[in-house]
């Protein structure tokens, strides 16, 4: 039986705690008597027979007819799937998407459906490389569909292939992929790593146009998104998307939503020590830690990145549910919370977190400075329900080298964002009004997004907006071990060591602040009372 999440009160016998530092780690001693560490629940047991579970879900959907009953000869069937922004790390093959889509295709074939398109629901993410598509879908699907032009990636800038389905009562235009909009049935295959994903967000962002996304992916909305992991009504982002979902339901194609959850078994040996509780480290774990960190210190960054991005996680499916979108998503959230929820009492003055080498926007790529902000203030800070782990005006301390390094193919507009926008402003609302349009309309970015493997021109804005609430909530943000000029350009304060960071933090929170450390990995949702 996996152990539930746990809040450790740090005392003098508590060993140093593991912090990610990009492509490396450190052990940090937290002050005794006023620090606590939030440990995630241990990974749930995976489903024993995943293929049978998939079949069962497709044949016994929630508030929806069984999938075979929806499949008719001559129909236009579109299967959409989440891109490789998740899960992280990528999962060992066969990927959930491959298993589910193969099952859907088998049923479609049995029903005589031959007009089938498979679309990667990228939104404004970068197009996947062939090796990534093959990893997610398997060679069988790729080789059968891609050469015939029936497996492709959504293009939010292909205006000839976008369709407006309607407008919400707030004036938000729902514009999505035309093939999906005009299909007789859309099957969406999701992997739900975090509570913010899934539901109407799958189609309303993954298949949307820039115009459609800009209604909710903006500074104002994200500043008013006070919970990404908890109640939807606290999220202006999700409220907007759910309004669009109603338009989709009323004017769009018939939908069949398939959502899956994974356990949090994220790192195989020899990196499995990362997820362990430090006082339970064996001698072997300590030796592995020492050997790993010392080796990584001597390893060129490019090689270290390669090592980490090549990790394939052993995480496996813990649930699959299919059918009507909202009903399915409600059940999905229950499963996500079952794996990730940790009850936590009250807020503290400081929140510390180690930032890893990866976030949803740099699979097989560089964790550039904007993504460090996004991962820290956008993702990790938001891993709470009810209220943040750190009090309003408190201090957030992150550890990451924050090198000024960008992947020129994947993140071209991020470089310009760093060089042009951040020196001007770090305010998400101001930058949105002043600069976003220029990046949206830049023909070079459009070209690279549509034909290369680049994130859309506005994506660095979106990454920045993601941290808007955290940025507004924190009185100060400190990055330990980061390149100082780069950290300052983000609007944060650099510190050389954790002790220095605590000293700097005293300006804001006084001399004996309370501290919460969010133990990463793995994923958790702190249910803060």
């Amino acid at each position, binding site marked *: 039986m996996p152990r539930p999440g746990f809040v450790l009160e740090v005392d003098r016998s508590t060993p140093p705690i593991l912090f990610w530092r990009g492509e490396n780690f450190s052990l940090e001693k937290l002050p005794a008597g006023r620090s606590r560490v939030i440990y995630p629940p241990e990974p749930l047991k995976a489903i024993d027979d995943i293929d049978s579970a998939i079949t069962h879900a497709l044949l016994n959907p929630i508030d929806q007819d069984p999938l075979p009953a929806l499949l008719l000869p001559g129909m236009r069937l579109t299967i959409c799937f989440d891109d490789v922004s998740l899960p992280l790390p990528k999962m060992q093959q066969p990927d959930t998407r491959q298993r589910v889509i193969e099952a859907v295709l088998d049923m479609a074939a049995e029903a005589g459906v031959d007009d089938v398109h498979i679309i990667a629901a990228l939104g404004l993410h970068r197009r996947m490389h062939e090796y990534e598509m093959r990893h997610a879908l398997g060679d069988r699907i790729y080789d059968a569909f891609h050469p015939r032009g029936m497996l492709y990636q959504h293009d939010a800038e292909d205006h000839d292939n976008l369709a407006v389905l309607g407008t919400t009562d707030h004036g938000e235009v729902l514009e999505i992929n035309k093939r999906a909009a005009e299909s007789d049935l859309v099957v969406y295959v999701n992997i739900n790593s975090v509570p913010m994903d899934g539901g109407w967000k799958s189609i309303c962002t993954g298949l949307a146009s820039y115009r459609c996304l800009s209604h909710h992916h903006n500074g104002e909305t994200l500043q008013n998104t006070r919970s990404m992991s908890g109640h939807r009504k606290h999220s202006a982002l999700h409220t907007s998307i759910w309004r669009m979902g109603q338009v989709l339901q009323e004017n769009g194609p018939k939908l069949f939503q398939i959502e899956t959850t994974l356990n949090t078994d994220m790192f195989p040996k020899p990196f499995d020590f990362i997820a362990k509780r430090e006082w339970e480290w064996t001698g072997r774990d300590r030796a592995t830690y020492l050997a790993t960190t010392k080796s990584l210190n001597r390893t060129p960054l490019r090689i270290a990145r390669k090592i980490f991005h090549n990790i394939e996680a052993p995480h496996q499916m813990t649930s699959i549910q299919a059918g009507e979108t909202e009903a399915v998503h409600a059940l999905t959230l229950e499963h996500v919370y079952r794996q990730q929820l940790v009850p936590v009492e009250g807020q503290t003055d400081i929140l510390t977190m180690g930032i890893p080498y990866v976030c949803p926007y740099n699979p097989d790529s560089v964790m550039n400075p904007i993504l460090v902000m996004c991962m820290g203030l956008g993702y990790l800070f938001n891993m709470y329900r009810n209220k943040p782990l750190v009090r309003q005006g408190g201090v957030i301390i992150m550890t990451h080298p924050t090198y000024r390094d960008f992947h020129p193919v994947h993140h*071209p507009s991020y*470089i*310009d964002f760093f*060089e*042009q926008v951040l020196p001007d402003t770090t305010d998400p609302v101001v930058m949105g009004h002043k600069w976003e349009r*220029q990046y949206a309309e*830049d*023909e*070079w970015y459009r*070209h690279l997004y549509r034909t290369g493997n680049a994130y859309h021109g506005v994506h660095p804005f979106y990454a920045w907006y993601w941290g808007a609430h955290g940025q507004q909530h924190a009185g100060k943000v400190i990055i330990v071990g980061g390149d100082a000029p780069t950290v300052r350009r983000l609007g944060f304060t650099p510190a050389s060591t954790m002790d220095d960071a605590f000293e700097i933090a005293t300006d804001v929170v006084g001399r004996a602040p309370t501290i919460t450390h969010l133990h990463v990995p793995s994923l958790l949702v702190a249910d803060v009372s």
Partner: protein
Amino acid sequence: MKALQVDKKLAKLGMARMLSAISPAAAVRMGPLEMVTIDPPALPGPGWYRVHTHLAGICGSDLATVEGHASAYFDDWVSFPFVPGHEVVGHLDDGRRVVIEPVLGHAARGFEPPFEGAAPGDGNDYAHLATGHLEPGIQIGFCNSTCGGWAPQFVAHDSQIHEIPDTMSDEQAVLVEPAAGGIHAALLTLPIVGGAERPVVAVLGAGTMGLCAIAGLRRYVPGVQIIVGARYPHQQSLATALGADTVVKPDELARAVRRATSSHMVGDHLSGGADATIDAVATSDSIADCLRFTRPRGRVVLMGMPAQVSVDLTGLWHRETQLVGAYTYGTETMLDGSRRRTFDLAIETAQQLGFERLLSATYRLDDHDDAIAHAAAAGRRGAVKIAFDLRPAPKKESA
């Protein structure tokens, strides 16, 4: 009189060249520049005047000379030993305060000017620079016959003398010569950008010359969008103050130009780029960079003094880029077709824009080691222009 003099001593030139990478101060001490006692130069003939130096700037070309980096190209265009110093403000025997247009042109050397009212730098044949009644020398400060500004006095021809108003300080006036160089480079963009609605000109480097070029662009190239690559914070501030629209670090310049011109980046070149670029650095890397972000059929104005460089010119060939040198100044053709002397424009500019802010420090001639070391590291040390002050030292008040 005591003067700083450069002699052609190959061993010292080699030593200076070697040491300059490690310690500019040591390069000066061991190099070809020496404090010597010499006789004041004789007046070469009628129309020549004795100039008493007030301030004399240290230019990049001076540094190249004393650090042994100057190209062998100049061997036949200068005459050793010479006293450097061509950025000069001083006074004549009759008390008039003047700045010197240092090029030793046709009139100074006893030749017919190439056209009526020509400036010293005008003309399409440089034979006069190495012939005539003076020793060879492209300018005062590189000619054995005239001496130069790094001495208490030197001689200058009437054609080189510009009287300055009383309202102009010596500190402004010593910047007139570099200002003229910068304005000349700025005006060399006109054949490409003149008449365009919102042309883009990039400036790489924001030392004295880069800053003067920015000022020249802003004043004399209407409607231009100026994008500057400046390395140091004080250079970035001054570039903005003198009229740059966008100022970035040099390694960010290509992308800033791309954004401003809506270009694509194809490999390491922009598909389009700046209409013109002024290279105030003039190294292999800077020239290659400028060629990369200047648009096809655009112009790169090479304002910094290069020596031997290694550059892949395939892009220049394919893009039909013009690579144009910008040595000095003379008579300019303005956008409206009118003709102006660059030095007149420079005097106006230096005064109206308060160029004394570009003069960071002055040294006495005796402290030349420190002065040149400071000039060689000006950017890193937060400075722009370093000059020698040869005015009488202020008398100490007695107790």
